[in-house]
Each structure stands twice: as structure tokens, then as C-alpha cells.
């Protein structure tokens, strides 16, 4: 048993945390989420310059080939800054999918640009009505000549409008395949909107989108890889949640130390002390399950892996709800204003709870493993 991090891992955390605290203050973030693009190219380039976009890129392509623990640590640091750039979608999930499935030429072309920060790839898998049943894909790719025709709709795809390329899952004759689709390919239409947490998302409509064979990643049924990528994303998301949870707790404790009512700091009231103690318990339980997720995400037994990740999402999701709500409550009226960062933490925690399946969705998924 060992819950310590290596020196390299601690340095990684330092790097990411220093970047966030220096380059991603609350005012800066407000400017970014209020801008037309909804992200900062400079921040993205900064992440590239620090090597953070190369985290999951294999060594052959010039990357760090790091694992889920490093991913969790970086995501947690970025979570503390409420980063709205497409790190999870592009640098974690899409990178992982390409590394796992793509051929040598594809990898060389895409990964090089991705780690340099010149290509953002949005992972476009979710569909309306699938309710995070991971393999409920209705988008279809029909073989035509030496390529494919794609039809379907991908729903609430984070960062789609900021990406140069989309990784789209689609049903093929022999299962599910992933396709690399440039955003400006004819037949691709985006309905873009802000997400509740300030990021950008879109529904992606695909109508008779022609793709040559070279845009398909891998051969045969890629369902297993798809599940592994989704689990990688979920484990990383739990890491991000930790960062936001910790920031919410720290901010609330600081507020309770300074805000006075009835002549004393409100942190002196036992009712609030116990509430904050419960917040801490939620954060620590979420931390434990995030560690579990980071370890189990490499498990090749898909069922065991899925059960552990669902369990993690239940605990993390419930922590997101409790800590977010109580952080706002303890801030009183100030907690519901746009002006304080705590409401922005609250909204990100709300979004995380709803991403890749809610706590209740995963409770349902876990429940089904009991009798299996």
C-alpha cells in the first residue's frame, strides 16, 4: 500500500498549479468565458509549452506517456482554476483514443499537432436519449465505395465549436467505430451554445458526411477501446472534481473566518462548523474514490473497471452536490452572486455531476452489477 506520489508527480502538480495561479485568475477567467470563442488560445499554448498537452501522448510521438495518476493530478490542478479550455476532451480523451486506435500515419499527423497546441480535437460521443448508456450509439457510418457516409446527431458536445477536428463514434456493420471528422467537412453542422459552467458546447448534426477510409481509426469493432476511453475520461473528471471541491471548501472556510454576524465570525457557530466538517468528509471520500478510479481505470476486466468507476462517480457526484450547495448556503446572499467565485465553483460542480452520467445514473449502473 502506498498513497504517496513520486517526485516527478509532485513536480507535475507544481507545474500545473503554478500555471493556473499565475495565468488563470478569476478576472482572467471571466474575460475568457465572456469572450466570443469561450476559451483562450494563449492559455492553450501555455499548456502546450509546459508539456501538459503531451501528458498522454506515447513516447514515440514525443509525448510523456503518463498514466491515470498523472492525469488525475493535472486535472485536479486545472480544476482548482475552473479551467474552461478543452483539456479533458482533447488532451485526455481524444489523445487516448488516437494513441490506442490510430494507425502510424494518423498518429504522426494528429498527435504532433495536438501536443504542439495547434490542433484541438473534441471527443464527440454522447447522443440525445442515450442517457450515458455508453454503447447506445445511433449515429451510422455506411460504407460507400472507398469511404463512409455518416448520418446522426451528437448531443451536448463540449468544445465542438473550438475544435479543428471531432472524434465521432458511429455504428458500422461490425460494431462501433471512431471517425476523425474535420469540423468544416461538408454536411457537418453545429448548434453552439454556452454551457452552464461558462464553457462552450454544441449539438453536432451529421448529414451525409463523406469520409475516406483514412479517417477511420482502427479496424473492426472498437467498442472495447471506446469504453476504455470513456472510463479514462470519467477518472480524469473525478480528478477535476477534486480540485473544484477543494477550492470550494477552502473558499468557504476562509469566508466563515472573516464574515461576522451577531458580533462574531460565522465560523464560530457550531451549526456551520458541523456543516463544514461534513463538507470535508465528502471531499475526503471523493478523494479516496478518485484514487480508486485512477488505479482501476487500467483494469482490463471491463466489468470490474466499470463497477469501480461507477462507484467513484456516485461518491464524487454526491460530494459535488453537497459541497457545492453548502458552499453557496454558507456564503449567504453573496453565494448566489455572479461576482464571487463560489457561484462559479457551484456551477462547475453541478456540470461535473451531470457529465458522463449523474450520480443516480451510476448508482443504477452499479446496482445492476450486484446480481450479475
Amino acid at each position, binding site marked *: 500500500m502506498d498513497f504517496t506520489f513520486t517526485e516527478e508527480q509532485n513536480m507535475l502538480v507544481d507545474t500545473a498549479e503554478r500555471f493556473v495561479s499565475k495565468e488563470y485568475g478569476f478576472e482572467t477567467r471571466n474575460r475568457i468565458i465572456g469572450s466570443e470563442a469561450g476559451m483562450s488560445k494563449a492559455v492553450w499554448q501555455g499548456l502546450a509549452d509546459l508539456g501538459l498537452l503531451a501528458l498522454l501522448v506515447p513516447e514515440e510521438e514525443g509525448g510523456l506517456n503518463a498514466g491515470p495518476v498523472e492525469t488525475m493530478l493535472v486535472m485536479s490542478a486545472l480544476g482548482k482554476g475552473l479551467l474552461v479550455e478543452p483539456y479533458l476532451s482533447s488532451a485526455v480523451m481524444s489523445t487516448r483514443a488516437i494513441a490506442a486506435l490510430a494507425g502510424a500515419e494518423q498518429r504522426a499527423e494528429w498527435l504532433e499537432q495536438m501536443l504542439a497546441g495547434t490542433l484541438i480535437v473534441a471527443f464527440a460521443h*454522447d447522443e*440525445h*436519449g442515450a*442517457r*450515458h*448508456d455508453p454503447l447506445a450509439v445511433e449515429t451510422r457510418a455506411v460504407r460507400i465505395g472507398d469511404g463512409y457516409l455518416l448520418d446522426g*446527431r451528437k*448531443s*451536448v458536445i463540449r468544445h465542438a465549436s473550438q475544435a479543428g477536428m471531432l472524434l465521432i463514434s458511429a455504428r458500422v456493420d461490425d460494431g462501433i467505430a471512431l471517425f476523425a471528422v474535420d469540423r468544416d467537412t461538408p454536411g457537418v453542422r453545429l*448548434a453552439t*451554445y*454556452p*454551457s*452552464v*459552467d461558462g464553457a462552450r*458546447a454544441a*449539438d453536432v448534426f451529421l448529414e451525409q458526411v463523406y469520409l475516406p477510409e483514412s479517417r477511420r481509426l482502427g479496424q473492426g469493432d472498437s467498442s472495447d477501446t471506446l469504453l476504455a476511453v470513456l472510463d479514462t475520461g470519467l477518472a480524469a473528471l473525478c480528478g477535476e472534481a477534486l480540485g473544484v471541491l477543494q477550492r470550494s471548501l477552502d473558499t468557504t472556510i476562509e469566508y466563515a473566518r472573516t464574515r*461576522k*454576524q*451577531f*458580533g462574531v465570525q460565522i465560523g464560530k*457557530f457550531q*451549526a*456551520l462548523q458541523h456543516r463544514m466538517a461534513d463538507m470535508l468528509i465528502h471531499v475526503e471520500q471523493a478523494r479516496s474514490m478518485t484514487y480508486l478510479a485512477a488505479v482501476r481505470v487500467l483494469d482490463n476486466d471491463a466489468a470490474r473497471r466499470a463497477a469501480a468507476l461507477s462507484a467513484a462517480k456516485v461518491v464524487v457526484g454526491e460530494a459535488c*452536490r453537497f459541497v457545492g*450547495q453548502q458552499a*453557496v*448556503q454558507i456564503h*449567504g*446572499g453573496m*453565494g*448566489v*452572486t*455572479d*461576482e464571487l467565485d463560489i*457561484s*462559479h465553483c*457551484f*456551477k462547475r460542480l*453541478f*456540470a461535473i455531476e*451531470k*457529465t458522463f452520467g*449523474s450520480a*443516480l*445514473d451510476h*448508482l*443504477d449502473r452499479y*446496482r445492476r452489477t450486484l446480481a450479475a
Partner: protein
Amino acid sequence: MDLNFTTEDQTFREEVRSFLRDHLPSGVRHKVLNGTHLDRDDYLAWQRALHARGWGGPSWPAEFGGTGWTPVQQYIFDEACAEAGAPRLVPFGLKMVAPVIMAFGNKAQQDRFLPPILAGTEWWCQGYSEPGAGSDLASLKTRAVRDGDHYVVNGQKTWTTLGQYADWIFCLVRTDPDAKPQRGISFLLIDMKSPGITVRPIITMDGLHEVNEVWLEDVRVPAENLIGEENKGWTYAKFLLGHERTNIAGIGIAKRELARLKRIATSETRHGQPLLQDPLFSAEIARVEIDLMALEITNLRVLSAEAENRAPGPEASILKIKGSEIQQRLLELMTEAIGPQALPFDRDAMAAGYQGDYPLAAYARTPTWQYLNLRKLTIYGGSNEIQRNIISQMILGL
């Protein structure tokens, strides 16, 4: 023991429902049932419709132009209105300042201020909270100094709900800084057009402008706008806070939102089955429905005591705590029911009559902003922590 309303009360309920069918403006109704944000004209249209029927003051005694309804009738009215999709009555004039003016104002003040409230021609806002005086309201610092036949007011109020629409503000001001905090407070009515008043919006996390800061700088207020006696304002303030009880639990609103949750859970599916039949989700709906059932009966018990002139007192805190928690839970479950559709957040698409290219089911467009918006329920009107203090001290004697 009988949990039913009397025959007269049931007849009354039918009368209210019939009025609602004919006179609740359909556009307003549609907005309320779908969780769309309401604007000033929506509230005023409803107040005027009620006034035309002679129901402008459902909680007012007949001598001031009110309906003279019993607490039970008021409850029935509120519940029927909420369930039918009527907006809430804007409380600041009707339910907050008016009872104070009736109880402690003089004849001239009553004649001047009450009729426009009833008719919906003057909008009031509340000047209680200050940046340093929230839960600890008595620590308020806004100062009023007598100068001839005027008071000169300086200070800052905050969380002034819909103050941007207001013609008048009722303010708690400090007139004796040397007395104990509760003793040196007075209750002033101030014209929002007075020189020296600045209203600044506070944007909340749902992106809306609902609350404001109100800055008062050398605002001259005629001394005739003082309610009751100088330095007795805390008594009136407490009277105001304790006055509106029959609707504090929001039973009608909760029933309406529960019905909306069930409609959404009928349309949304998991594993090919409507959420309403999903074992986990339906259990959550059942739990909140049962919680609401209990609260409804608790509310009726409080009402019944009130009807028999047994003062309801601190039991209102139970209603406020449970009522606010149930409403928050209902919205939380709606955001759960719509799944990933809870994430898109486009204010334009949440407006009534939106025709643009926003790929969400109509019922999925509003739960998220309402969920964010309703975090205020457990904070305002005496936070739920303060309500629990009241219960511990006043009921449990701790």
C-alpha cells in the same frame, strides 16, 4: 379529526378555480407552468385582473378594500392560483408594507399608500438587508437624521428584489445610534424618485438581474413618511416578518412543480422506459411527494390553529424550512430527469416564444436556471439556519 375543508370552503375553491380558468392571462400561465422568467408586466397584469374581480388584496381585511377572507380561504386561494399557473403575488407591497401601514400607519398614510398597492399601480421594494446586516438584521447602519420636517438618509441597502421596478421602498433606518441595536431603528417610506437614490444591479449566478443594491446619499424624506413612532421600527419590522404565514410553505407551488416533474419524467426515458417507471428515479419522486404530503398536513394544522386565534408563532419556521427544501429538491430532480440536457445554458432560448435553433426539448430549457435561482430559497426571508435557531429557542426552549 377531519382533514377535509368544509362545504363552504370547497365551494369557494371552485369559485376561485372558475375565475382562474376565465381570467388568468394565458401567456402568463404558460410562462409559469414552463418555468419561464416573468417580467414586470406579467406580475402587474395578474394583479390588475385580481383587482378587477375585487380580489386585489386576498390577505387584506375588507375595511381596506381587501377580500376579508379567513386564513383558510387565503390558503385555498393561494394553492388554487399556484396550481393553475398564476404568478405569485408580488409580496413587497401587498404582503409586507401594507399590513404594517394598516396596523401602525395613520389615516393619511393608509389613504395615500394602500389603494395603489391594491390596484397594482405602485410597485414597492424592501429596504431591510445591508452588506453587513443579513441574518443579523438589527446591526443595520443606514442612518436617518431629523432635519426640520424631513429626515436625511444615508446608507446602503442590498438584496433589494426587483428594486429596479419600484416606485417606493420601505426602509429600516437607524435614528438613534446610541440606543441598543433594536431600539434605535425607525420605519420609513421613501420615494424611489428622490434625489440621492441610486439603484445598482446585482447579477446572480443564473445571469439574471433580480436583486439590487440601493444607495442612499443625503436623501430627504418628509417626516410624514415615518410609520408609527420614531425608534419603534424594530417592532414593526418583526410584525412584518411574522405576518405572512399562510403561504410560506408554498404548498401550491410545490404541487405544481411536482406535476411538472412527473410530466418531464414521462417524456424522458432510461433503458427504454419512462423515468416515472424507473425504479431509482420513481423512488426519488415518491420520496418528495410523500414529504410534501406531510408538509401539507402540517401546514393545515398551523392554519387551523391560526383560524382559532391560537397564535401560530414559531411553527412557521417549520413551514419555511421544509417548504424551501422541497422546492429545491423538485428542481434538482427536474435537472436530474433531463440528464445531459441540463448543461446547455442559453438565456435567449429560455424566453417565452423562442423560435431559434436550440436543440433541447421545450421542457428541458428552464430547469437548470431555476435550480440555480432557487438556491436563494434557503437563504432569504430568514435563512434556514436562522429558522432552526428560532425552533431551538422558541419551541424547544434551548
